[in-house]
């Protein structure tokens, strides 16, 4: 029983870490003015994803 609880706790923590990874990935696509070249991770896929969901043309 204790082992099951322990595994459940670990699974919940792993799920939380996955949540954190998603947030960090979304953050990579959202930072303004960060040049893609020279960054350790290619930013383009993150920025494209961000643009698809969180960008619309300005229409005043």
């Amino acid at each position, binding site marked *: 029983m204790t082992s099951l609880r322990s595994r459940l706790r670990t699974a919940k923590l792993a799920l939380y870490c996955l949540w954190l990874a998603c947030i960090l990935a979304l953050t990579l696509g959202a930072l303004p003015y960060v040049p893609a070249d020279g960054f350790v991770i290619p930013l383009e896929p993150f920025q494209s994803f961000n643009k698809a969901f969180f960008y619309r043309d*300005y*229409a005043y």
Partner: protein
Amino acid sequence: MTTLINPRVIALVLPAIILVIFYSYAVWSAGFLLSFLLAEKARANGLLFSATLSPVALSPATVYVLGHAALSILLQLMALMGLIRWYILLPLLLGLILGAGLLQGLPPLPWQKLTVMRQTLIPQGLAAKGLAFSVVALVLLLAMVTFSMPGTDALAYYMAQPKLMAATGAYTLLPRYENFATLPAIAEMPYAVMYALGGSAIGFVAAKLSIWVVFIALLWLLWVLMRKLGASLTTTWMLMALVATSTAITLVTWDGKTDLIGLMYALTAILWLPGLLPQTATSHKPAWLSGCMAACAVMAKVSYLSILPFCLGLPLLLIWRKQPLVFLRLAGIACLSAIATLAVGWWLKNAVLFGDPFTPFLTFRETTPGFNLSQVWFDADSTRWILQTYPLALTFGNYPLQHGGLSPIWLILAPALLTKPWQTAHGKKALYIALGSIVGLFIWMTLRPSVIAPRYFFPVLIFPCCLLMLGLEQWLQQKRPWATAAIFASILVVMLNGYYLVSVAKITTLPLSKSISGVVGLTPLWDRAAALRKRASNNSRILLLSYSSEFLTQPMLASFTLLETPNQPLLSERALSLRDDETILDMALREKIDYIVYDTITHRRDDLDVTPPPGLNVEKLEYAKDVYYLYALKRQESTS
């Protein structure tokens, strides 16, 4: 780094730093003096000066905010009387410092307390220490980045209007932005002091740096709030990280806008909300101060008018729900205080400038410039999409005009709400603040659904984060691994933001410092301004095909304003309604214009690069291809 440390840059930056320190100290002294007028009770309440609280909780920040608001309102009144002159401002500010000194010794400098504060600032644990260290590094980096060219809005109005005040000594309306003058200018008044005391160049650097001081005050106020809500050092540092990684906040810290001042006032209004914190029981004074600060927040950022009544009113109602009479009394006092503050800081100014005190909400005169309060930024489909992506859009959105977002740290901590942090006494207070803010956010989404810029409604985004932080507090006590994971993820967010600020420094700070050292071609706007300074006289007639006028020197800006023909449309407006057979160059010859400043992005036209009319020589100077140009016009003698 060597680019930054060169004589010309130092000659600008060092006096600017001294000027900002001097002004901030005078502001603090003003708050210090005011606190004496507020009698013993407010002092005993512990939010102005407190002997009973720990040194960290001691609130020079609230004293600073009080002084900031009072001095800004006073400066605005002085501008109406034509008293924005260095020989008036300097004795005034020195008098405030000396007055505070004579009354109770000079206000203690913050760094005199640092030794004591060090012990209460550094959190326990390696992860928390790492977080604190990275936040401090980020905040210092932010100070460096304030040394940069301002953004478009700042060049157009936020910095241009106070520069014109400093140039003319009075509240002279900035051509083309007269409608903005129907709003209060208390957030811009410190800029006027910077320009009046520092001149065009030093004033420019000092004005931008002065907002960083406001950013520090903001952090300090949040620190005080969190500590009074019973948060540990680790948790409080997490809130610091959240603020320092909110690009909506950091962008306006360095780009010359003044939005942070409104947030600073709003935060002080929350701190003084009667009954929220132990020191603000049923005394009338916190209600007076809270109402006054709420009004100042609205005057500094008018959009807060839609949200602050809910952010402040609902927590007040929830705190005093069992004593309705006390609630009514306190709310009544706060409202009276707010009305009195609005009368002095807004309506009086409008009455003097336009004879129309309640404009733009209630306009009686046809001559009063109209201000568009009902902004629409996107079409219906896009607006619907934006609302569907709330609240994630507030963090990850990159919509045009959005200008940054709220830090992702709120999402990192969102699962901590499962610990139900509102069950404690402090947690309840944080919950009330959060509920008020969430209602405020819904009101904003209803009234201005397409206006997604967080800078228009900062308080409703920042205030609920206090509750999240108390959730982290529960994790620290009950689920340590979760708290550690959250802290490490937050450190990564801070590092990403650090990388972002380094990129900003590379594309703004370093090129500007090189341009100041004499290198041409790196900062187009600076180069164009330098060329204009060198070539044009104070009486040159300049046609602005650009939204910006901050780059004109103070005498130029004053004469540019005066040279416009009274009771006639502005030169730039006349340029929009030429006859079919007339080009802008024909108009330039007729109106004896000497220079045309041309920004193609906003003012593109096709009659500039044509054969000039006889009698006019045109020299075209390009500063950024297809973006920034300067046309130097010379009339031949026979026609001049």
